[in-house]
């Protein structure tokens, strides 16, 4: 093991441990939690629900990870979801073919992301401020598109993105999994991962090293916008309607939380897409667990907060080398003195 500072397994331990614990608690609350059966051509069960409902958060978290790794944050993803969902639904209702509507919706997400990117990279606005603009106006734009009402559609092609299944696996899960795989390959098989981490740790020094950090930031925010658009299409397709007021509401916070739980620092730098996805699954497993538990809804937020505090404390303990200290201090000492 070359990296002796924090071994990979120890780094992932708090997240994997939390996930296992939450799944176990869900099992206690509802013994049928792990049951999966095949029904009407798709897998059916609570675990499938966790992944299916978690898919939009996973997709958002993928884009958000890139943004946060670059030492930014994108508050507008929820609003961008509303915009893209609204556009896809409205165009479908207006009679455009589904592929056209979907591509247009992804396109508008890209535009939103590029807008954020231009503000951050070229106008040097602080990301939190730059994306706040679209967070507020985006929902307004979505409302303009839907004219304030929920645009309901019955086009099977669009609905497929929300409740369809291929080989029994719900489409949202497939989209999230493919996006995750493609993105991981993209950042780790090209230099993008290193360069994103580099501008996240020190943008000035990266520019001095000849890295076009402005263009890279633009691409990162554009990508985040595309992810938000995908999530927006899935959410609209899931309920067969574009709800401009509520689609993606507060989901930007879940996405940020997923990234943080996944261990990417809000100060940028090292990131892990897999861990962010696990963070998203943790959040959704928690949500599903609360639903299954039968606690009165007044406790939802308190339960969620408690679990998050525990996870983040475990993670902080781990990043301070706590696990490594407990497990391998002796061994580490031995090898280093040779």
């Amino acid at each position: 093991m070359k990296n002796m500072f924090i071994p990979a397994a120890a780094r992932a331990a708090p997240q994997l441990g939390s996930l296992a614990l939450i799944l176990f608690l869900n099992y206690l609350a509802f013994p049928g939690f792990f049951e999966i059966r095949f029904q009407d051509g798709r897998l059916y069960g609570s675990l499938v629900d966790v992944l299916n409902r978690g898919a939009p958060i996973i997709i958002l978290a993928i884009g958000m990870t890139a943004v946060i790794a670059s030492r930014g944050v994108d508050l507008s993803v929820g609003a961008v979801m509303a915009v893209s969902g609204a556009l896809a639904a409205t165009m479908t209702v207006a009679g455009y073919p589904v592929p056209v509507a979907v591509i247009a919706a992804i396109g508008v997400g890209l535009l939103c992301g590029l807008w954020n990117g231009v503000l951050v990279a070229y106008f040097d606005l602080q990301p939190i401020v730059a994306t706040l603009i679209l967070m507020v106006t985006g929902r307004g734009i979505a409302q303009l598109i839907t004219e304030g009402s929920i645009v309901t559609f019955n086009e099977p092609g669009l609905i497929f993105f929300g409740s369809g299944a291929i080989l029994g696996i719900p489409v949202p899960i497939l989209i999230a999994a493919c996006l995750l795989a493609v993105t991981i390959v993209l950042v780790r098989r090209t230099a993008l991962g290193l360069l994103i981490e580099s501008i996240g740790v020190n943008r000035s020094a990266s520019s001095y090293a000849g890295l076009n950090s402005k263009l890279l930031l633009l691409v990162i925010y554009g990508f985040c916008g595309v992810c938000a658009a995908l999530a927006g299409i899935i959410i609209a397709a899931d309920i067969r309607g574009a709800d401009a007021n509520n689609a993606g509401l507060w989901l930007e916070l879940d996405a940020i939380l997923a990234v943080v739980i996944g261990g990417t620092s809000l100060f940028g730098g090292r990131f892990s897409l897999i861990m962010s996805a696990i963070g998203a699954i943790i959040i959704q497993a928690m949500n599903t667990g609360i639903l299954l538990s039968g606690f009165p809804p007044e406790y939802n937020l308190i339960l969620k907060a408690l679990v998050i505090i525990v996870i983040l404390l475990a993670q902080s303990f781990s990043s301070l080398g706590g696990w490594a200290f407990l497990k391998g201090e002796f061994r580490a000492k031995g090898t280093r003195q040779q």
Partner: protein
Amino acid sequence: MTDKANVLAVEGIGKSFVGFKALDGVDFSIRAGEVHALLGENGAGKSTLIKVLTGVHQPDAGVISLDGQPVHVRDTHHAQSLGIGTVYQEVNLLPNMSVADNLFIGRQPTRYGFIDRRLMERRAREVLAQYDLHLDVASDLSRYSVAIQQLVAIARAVDMSGRILILDEPTASLDRHEVEILFAMIRRLKARGLGIVFITHFLDQVYEVCDHVTVLRNGKLAGSAPTSELPKLDLVKMMLGRTLAVATHGDRRHRPPPEERQLSFKGVGRSRSIAPFDLDIGEGEVIGMAGLLGSGRTETAKLLFGIDAADKGEAWIDGRAVRIRTPQDAVALGFGLCPEDRKSDGIIGDLSIRENIALALQAHRGWFNRLPKREQTAMADRFVKALDIRTTDIEKPVKLLSGGNQQKVILARWLATNPRFLILDEPTRGIDVGAHAEIITLINELCDKGLALLVISSEIDEIVAYSNRVVVLRDRTHLGELSGDEITTSNIMQMIATETGEVPA
């Protein structure tokens, strides 16, 4: 003044980090009214010792005693209440708050639960007046120079603690005049009976202001003696454990100038940054650039490298007109820049040594043309060996290295791109004596390999040692060039010091 009792003493202090002894049985003591230099190469244990004294780290072994009584310094706050104040190299102040706020932050005088600004500002003026500092205490600290900020930081530390003052490289970013102001303050505090620990890399300053010297090497005590009894050469020997020989390349100066200077800048300038200048550099040449802080040295480097775009003039390379508007343009032309501010513009602290070395080459190759990890590792290993970068592991975050080794990593980053022209802005600043000599040796080797080098430095002796030609700057203007036998310390000094209009021919 003779034989005053020790205010603060440590005996047999030891401190280990995972598998590595940072301090091993170190003794150190300081008397009231004494300025005590603490010297050592980077990584010798100075910072660890300071952190033990100020309660940041708890020692594994040894005793700390204050006025002869053993104490246990729990944390920095406790250290302050014991009278031990510290001012770090990077000033730990808040530039966007007022001078008075900075002096009293965390302990502002209050009235009815609100900060009493009038009282706070009056007391701030009183505190500063003790040092003949008459500042507008209500205005933002950032309005004042780094030197003044440093003085404010010291005033704050003395006001809060008042017995022992630890100054960690306070002069690193100050010019000559500012250093004088700082020394005046130190002498004043010494007269008041404070014990002052002074950490620096500048040996001249040790002899100028310090009464006693303690040298650490590899976590152990290398020696301790009154300054007056320790000749400079002995001190250097004590620090390095070997004799230092700075090779001068006098012969290079007498080589015939290259027939053709491939890099040529004509009338390049940028308004409000640097006046238009001409500069020609040929392969195998070292151009030294001398001038005081703020004379336009770094501005010149930024312009040549495209960090700032020139608004005047033109650049020619191999007889072809080129445009350098961004660092990417400069890198594509085979330029490299080791920036002055290593921490904020140089290293990517959290990334590994390997990644830091690969970065410029990777940025140049493009986003999608990844340098395979195997090649990155091979490259990093090669440079770690070639430049003697001291580290246990190339996967270590670069921020954990000492300043000199970080500088070598940045140098490696550019050498990996196989450049034709390297700009080194203050390559030896904040670096210990040993690494200093190594960097200079490297400069000479690079030059011999045919690289064109522009080296900016405040160490005029160094510039004299390695330059073919020397450009002197003042007030954001290139005053002129010295070459051949003209290159002497006194000529350069004179040129910097003369008033505008009487530039020697």
